[in-house]
């Protein structure tokens, strides 16, 4: 039954696992299923791309040996590592995500974060697939919550950093504008000097020609009128 559950996990029957775990009486049984779920989480966290081709059992075996990562580590991972996936694949992660706190007592913070977003998915499995984009957004928010909670202590630090960043951006923009303005000016000058140079050269040529012809004219002797005294 476990192996079949493992196989079917990705195809929507993930919540069958979680529901079975939620309704499980024995702690042992839930822990075993939990381990499956945790493995799936690790798999999901580290092999996102492969999860698109879901349903291949061999993929399940390519699991991260690091099964000791706690749930919070998964939640605290940077947001980038949670790309949008097609609904069929995301459902497994989502349910794994939300399924896990039920059988075992979750850490207090996780529970509070979950309560707003997660539990309703478990109650209504029909809405699960439809609300998958929201679920990722919810899980994405987990990363932000940590920051928002500590806002009081390092809020001013964040503000100052933000202001500094804006100032730096403005300074960089001014620097770029300065450089660009000077470059444009030089280009304009070059163009201007080139045309002037061409003009002066032509003028010089013309003057040289004029002088040469004048010189030639002077060389030939000419008869000029003589006074008839």
């Amino acid at each position: 039954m476990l192996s079949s559950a493992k196989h079917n996990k990705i195809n929507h029957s993930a919540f069958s696992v979680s529901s079975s775990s939620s309704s499980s009486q024995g702690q042992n049984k839930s822990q075993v299923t939990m381990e499956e779920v945790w493995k799936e989480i690790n798999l999901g966290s580290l092999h996102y791309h492969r999860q698109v081709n879901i349903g291949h059992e061999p993929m399940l075996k390519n699991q991260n040996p690091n099964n000791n990562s706690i749930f919070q580590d998964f939640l605290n991972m940077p947001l980038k590592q949670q790309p949008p996936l097609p609904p069929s694949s995301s459902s497994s992660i989502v349910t794994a995500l939300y399924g896990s706190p039920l059988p075992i007592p979750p850490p207090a913070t996780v529970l509070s974060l979950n309560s707003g977003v997660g539990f309703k998915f478990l109650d209504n499995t029909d809405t699960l697939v439809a609300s998958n984009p929201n679920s990722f957004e919810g899980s994405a928010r987990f990363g932000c919550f940590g920051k928002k909670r500590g806002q009081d202590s390092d809020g001013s630090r964040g503000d100052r950093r933000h202001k500094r960043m804006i100032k730096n951006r403005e300074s960089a923009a001014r620097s770029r504008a300065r450089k660009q303005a000077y470059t444009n000016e030089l280009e304009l000058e070059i163009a201007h000097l080139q045309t002037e140079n061409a003009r002066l050269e032509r003028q010089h040529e013309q003057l040289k020609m004029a002088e040469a012809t004048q010189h030639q004219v002077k060389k030939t002797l000419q008869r000029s009128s003589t006074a008839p005294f």
Partner: protein
Amino acid sequence: MTSNVRDPLIVSRVVGDVLDPFNRSISLRVTYGQREVTNGLDLRPSQVQNKPRVEIGGEDLRNFYTLVMVDPDVPSPSNPHLREYLHWLVTDIPATTGTTFGNEIVCYENPSPSAGIHRVVMTLFRQLGRQTVYAPGWRQNFNTREFTEIYNLGLPVAAVFFNCQRESGCGGRRS
């Protein structure tokens, strides 16, 4: 402006922060020592200590021009709350001559910025006739636009700017 958006006066935001868009119609040559000022040229306080030689174009000696020299980036470009600082004001300059033939209303004060890289703008305006211009009470918080409105100078006929920073500045480059 006759020149397109790539005009250095626009790219550097001189047109915008200090002046309104205009078309150049009179030549303006500003020379500090041997250096002729081109837009965006980097000059240090030591190089601009004395007033420059200014030669203006035009044709009719009966036309008079006003030269305004301001620094819009005081006290620092990132926080210019004293914009603009009036460095020099010369009126009644006859066409084809220079500032030496004009009326120095506000005497030349050499730029010496302490923070950041400042733009220093020199603008030429055409006067309607010879007119009496009153010097402002102080140099900072000058407003070129307002000044031109008060004295009916209209749009500029020429302008040039350079960049000035403290003597030991890195030139805007870190390495």
